């Protein structure tokens, strides 16, 4: 993957020799960005399709099947519908904040992907504190929801925003503590090095010593991305549509895209932190290792991610929405003590040097 990229960079320099180094570098960064965001948005579009299809199947329906063969063009139909819809401004809303909110929701969701490595040396930036960067930028996304709720000048969005603020801030603490355990095991905050620490077969992955943390992380990830059963921000049956009641057209689509890109990001993060990133599960097994040697590393990452994305849909199709105070209780009285306890467990295990992980 890296060799391919290197030859591409050389090609750019060769094709446009009149550019000096600085401009070419900026150009390459721009191309890198587009090369990341475009597949990401297509992934997000087909995530919506997969969601409707999977939930349909779980409810004994067959889901969208009218646009294109087995409904495969449905995401594009949705996109064009959204593009041509009018953006309605509530008469007493603050238009600047009203327009700022979807941007504030969308931009951090995409910005996180700058540091997420997709393969051996396959990333946009190799930031030394990439895990911290992910947590930091992830929490900026809350502002999109808060400002949307406030700027709409309407009661349901405000209620949704208030709920989400408390919720996301609480669960960020839990995710932070889970990240601490991972960092303790990997002794690095760099996602590349966290994955490098899990080299060599499925038994080296961090989900084994950190199994409860993985479950806590995943449930917190559902909350962070406002997905069912923790989607109290939207809460269709209680507060109509939460923060995006007043949004229409592309403004609404940006919220939607931010949510789905965050989902894909959380799936990627779960894989990178607990499931060995792009490493094959068969590394080090004599026969199987050779058998799967042809699979590029990014494929392993995508395969593991797609399992977690499926888990999102599976959970949404199964569980009813949590009551708000129960979510808060779960966070402060169950997850937080559990994660803190596990930090001590991991500390002891690290000192003893148990297993291949530490």
């Amino acid at each position, binding site marked *: 993957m890296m060799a391919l990229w290197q030859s591409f960079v050389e090609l750019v320099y060769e094709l446009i020799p009149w550019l000096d180094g600085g401009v070419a570098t900026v150009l390459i960064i721009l191309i890198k960005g587009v090369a990341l965001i475009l597949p990401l948005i297509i992934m997000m579009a087909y995530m919506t399709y997969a969601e409707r299809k*999977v939930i349909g*199947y*779980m*409810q*004994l*329906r*067959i889901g969208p*099947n009218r646009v294109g063969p087995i409904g495969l063009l449905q995401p594009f139909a949705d996109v064009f519908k959204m593009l041509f819809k009018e953006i309605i401004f509530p008469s007493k809303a603050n238009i600047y904040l009203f327009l700022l909110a979807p941007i504030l929701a969308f931009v951090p969701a995409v910005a996180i992907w700058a540091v997420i490595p997709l393969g051996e040396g396959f990333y946009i930036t190799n930031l030394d504190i990439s895990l911290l960067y992910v947590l930091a930028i992830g929490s900026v996304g809350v502002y999109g929801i808060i400002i949307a709720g406030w700027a709409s000048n309407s009661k349901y969005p405000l209620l949704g925003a208030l709920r989400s603020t408390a919720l996301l801030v609480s669960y960020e603490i839990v995710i932070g503590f889970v990240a601490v355990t991972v960092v303790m095991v990997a002794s690095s905050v760099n996602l590349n090095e966290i994955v490098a620490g899990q080299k060599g077969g499925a038994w080296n992955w961090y989900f084994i010593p950190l199994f409860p943390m993985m*479950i806590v992380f995943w449930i917190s990830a559902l909350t962070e991305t406002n997905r069912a059963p923790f989607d109290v921000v939207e809460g269709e049956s209680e507060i109509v549509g939460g923060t995006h009641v007043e949004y229409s057209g592309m403004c609404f689509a940006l919220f939607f895209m931010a949510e789905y890109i965050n989902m894909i990001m959380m799936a990627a993060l779960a894989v990178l932190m607990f499931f060995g990133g792009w490493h094959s599960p068969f590394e080090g097994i004599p026969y199987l290792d050779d058998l799967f040697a042809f699979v590029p590393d990014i494929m392993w990452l995508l395969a593991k991610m797609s399992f977690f994305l499926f888990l999102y849909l*599976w*959970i949404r*199709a*199964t*569980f009813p929405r949590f009551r708000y105070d129960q979510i808060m209780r779960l966070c402060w009285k169950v997850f937080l003590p559990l994660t803190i306890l596990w930090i001590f467990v991991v500390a002891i295990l690290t000192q003893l040097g148990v297993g291949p992980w530490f």
Partner: protein
Amino acid sequence: MLNKFKKIIKDFTLNELLFGMSVTAKELVNTKITVQFPEERTPISPRFRGIHALRRYPNGEERCIACKLCEAVCPANAITIESEMREDGSRRTSQYDIDLFKCIFCGFCEEACPVDAIVETQIFDYAFESRDGSVLTKKRLLEIGEQNKKAIDQTKLEDSKYR
């Protein structure tokens, strides 16, 4: 105490959540029950009461003799009939209107009819585009009867055993 301990163990192993997810996982691969409506249709009883139609005798003579029994029995007053003498001296309708906004599709008109002229067909997926489209005139009713002659004869034959 022991029960409480058991419950904690059960909660922390996500027992009930996993059971719930196993149910949805089973349904994921189960046979789907969707009926793709315009292409596939669910079976309809011969007694189904859809849109109305006026029938004719095999020789082309219209059945309705303007006895106005249907008009009288109609609970929603949806039927309006005017009658007059035709050239050959027989009593016929000059106007036979059914207002579909009023009609409740009870089927009393069909039961009251002594000559089986007014019937209700199995057609239920119809629409009209203007406001006066809601009134079925005599012409339109005879047309529907003409277009669906086979289906009407078939369903009436099937249902005749039970009448």
